[in-house]
């Protein structure tokens, strides 16, 4: 536990005096404080027996996400903290604590400076999030990679007539964590976080740097970014001796990304692409597509969004995502009712192989402060040529009930 959370404790102790000082002064200095968050219960049920021994089928778990925001100096300065806890009763490896955010921010005229642990999102597409690289993926939380671990950083952002410039200094790297022996959606061998090493001798302490320019002109929203540092995704290099044996490590990468969206009436045209270079592998990937929304169908308030995206990754069989040449189609249904009922249906079909991924996500508010979510993911006819083959018997259904405060 000490090894896992050591860095987190250091950050916490560094900020604690500041927080206490702020609370102490809050009455005198006009500090605005806001506490919110949720507690949740989830049950994940796998439809088939696992591929490997000792894998379980049902996973109950609890989650808790508290958030505290303090602002003073008439909103010019703030301290934002978000924690996250997951307690999984059947797969101990999925039980984890994370500091999603803990940063101080100063805002003045057209610039802002943030220091601490923060989450940053870049990109426009729905099926994959290629350009989004600042934060490590929280592999234990979601299959779609939308949950992220907090990333320590110094972030400076400047808004100017020629666009917004963002500069990042990322002093510490966070490793991915993996499911345990009893868990699902895992590889045949049990991976420990520490099993994956680094190309760089500095390991986690090798600093990362990133730069992003983004702008909005008429119908266009564009972003160009560059990242240099430890890659967030482990690199799998086939071993020289035995077939099926891989060397796995975090490489030092240079990644240039571009995201572009054109908003023309009800149609959004989306494009994301990355070029990643490292000593052992160069790659190119892209996601291009459209989203068409039919609003207020029949005057009943229902919005139907149709999404189509083509995904390409030139690593072929070595693409961890398995999305080397795939077509994503999806439909988003938003009922715009008092309970905010929403559904998202999606399929990813491999254009060259048999693999099909099907997903359904639904959510609805119950009363004023409860929400109910369903998620289903099906893996159909998974080709034995891709990494996803490890998960071919891991189709699941999940229910989540959350109380928000």
């Amino acid at each position: 536990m000490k090894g896992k959370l050591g860095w987190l404790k250091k950050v916490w102790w560094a900020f604690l005096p500041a927080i206490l000082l702020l609370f102490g002064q809050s009455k005198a200095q006009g500090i605005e404080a806001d506490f919110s968050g949720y507690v949740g219960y989830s049950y994940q049920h796998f439809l088939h027996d696992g591929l490997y021994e000792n894998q379980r089928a049902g996973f109950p778990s609890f989650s808790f996400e508290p958030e505290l925001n303090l602002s003073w100096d008439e909103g010019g300065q703030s301290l934002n903290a978000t924690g996250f806890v997951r307690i999984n009763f059947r797969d101990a490896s999925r039980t984890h604590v994370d500091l999603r955010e803990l940063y101080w921010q100063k805002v003045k005229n057209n610039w802002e400076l943030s220091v601490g642990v923060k989450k940053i999102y870049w990109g426009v597409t729905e099926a994959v999030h290629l350009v989004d690289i600042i934060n490590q993926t929280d592999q234990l939380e979601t299959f779609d990679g939308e949950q992220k671990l907090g990333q320590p950083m110094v972030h400076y952002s400047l808004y100017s007539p020629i666009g917004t410039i963002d500069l990042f200094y990322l002093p510490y790297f966070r490793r991915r964590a993996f499911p345990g022996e009893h868990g699902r959606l895992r590889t045949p061998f049990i991976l420990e976080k520490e099993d994956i090493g680094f190309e760089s001798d500095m390991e986690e302490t090798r600093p990362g740097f990133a730069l992003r320019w983004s702008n909005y002109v008429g119908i266009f929203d564009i972003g160009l970014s560059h990242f240099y540092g430890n890659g967030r995704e482990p690199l799998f290099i086939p071993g020289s001796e035995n077939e099926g044996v891989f060397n796995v490590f975090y490489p030092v990468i240079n990644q240039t990304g571009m995201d572009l969206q054109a908003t023309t009436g009800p149609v959004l045209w989306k494009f994301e692409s990355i070029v990643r270079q490292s000593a052992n592998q160069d790659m190119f990937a892209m996601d291009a597509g459209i989203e068409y929304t039919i609003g207020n169908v029949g005057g009943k308030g229902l919005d139907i969004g149709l999404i189509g995206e083509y995904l390409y990754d030139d690593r072929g069989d070595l693409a961890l995502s398995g999305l080397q040449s795939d077509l994503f189609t999806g439909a988003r249904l938003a009922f715009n009712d008092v309970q905010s009922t929403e559904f998202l249906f999606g399929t990813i079909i491999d254009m060259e192989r048999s693999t099909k991924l099907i997903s359904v996500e639904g959510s609805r508010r119950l009363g004023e402060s409860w929400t109910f979510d369903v998620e289903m993911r099906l893996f159909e006819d998974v080709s034995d040529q891709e990494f996803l083959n490890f998960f071919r018997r891991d189709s699941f259904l999940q229910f989540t009930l959350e109380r928000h405060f």
Partner: protein
Amino acid sequence: MKYLKTLSTALALLFVVGINTKPQAQTPEARGLQIAKSAEEADLGFESSKVNLIMILTNKHGQESTRNMSTLTLELTEDGDKSLIVFDSPKDVKGTSTMTFTHKVGSDDQWLYLPSIKRVKRISSDNKSGPFMGSEFAYEDLSSQEVEKYTYKFLKEEKINGVDTYLVERDPVDPKSGYTRQLVWYNKDNYRLEKIDFYDRKNELMKTLTYSKYKQYFNKHWRAGEFLMENHQSGKKTKLIFEDYEFKIGLTDADFTQNSLRRVGS
């Protein structure tokens, strides 16, 4: 030559004044437009504003549901206003915010911020007839009411609830609007809105919006403390209560960026 120019200016002025003192000489369209412009002029110069909103939704069985949000607005004259809306409740959408750049002509630009994944999304502003947060207000009912978004026709002068008003019909220019026409009652003294009837695409009376609890700020700007929207077709209604209005709070374009959208939501 200079004398001639002065004379023509004087004549032009006389002509303009002549029109103003004889409104009955105007076409109903010109008079309707003039009333809409006068209403816009009567509110010029608030620069920027901030207000907290409580939205109370009532279904046909009388069950209520409440939402809280706050709005920041930047007044612009060359083009439409800029605004930010931040939700505080329901708690599961706390921090969700939208930013809209209204344009006098053409589609508005709109962004949505989703705090759980820290994502800013540019969204289509086409869907203006859809309901705002499950309420009886459509997006177009709450967006900045630029004069150019409608064509006008003056109908008559009328006394409603003891108030002298001008009744003007206005038709949305945008074919994507959910309405064929609206009947708008302007207060004769100060051009503030008293009531609007909304007619749906089948030209049937759909909703009535009533403004009440007006207060005047800076001896000029009238703001209603309550909007009540009643849907005659569904039997549902939505009340909007405005609290703690602040004006001229020094906001600039730099307060309406994607960075500000992220900040207000966190």
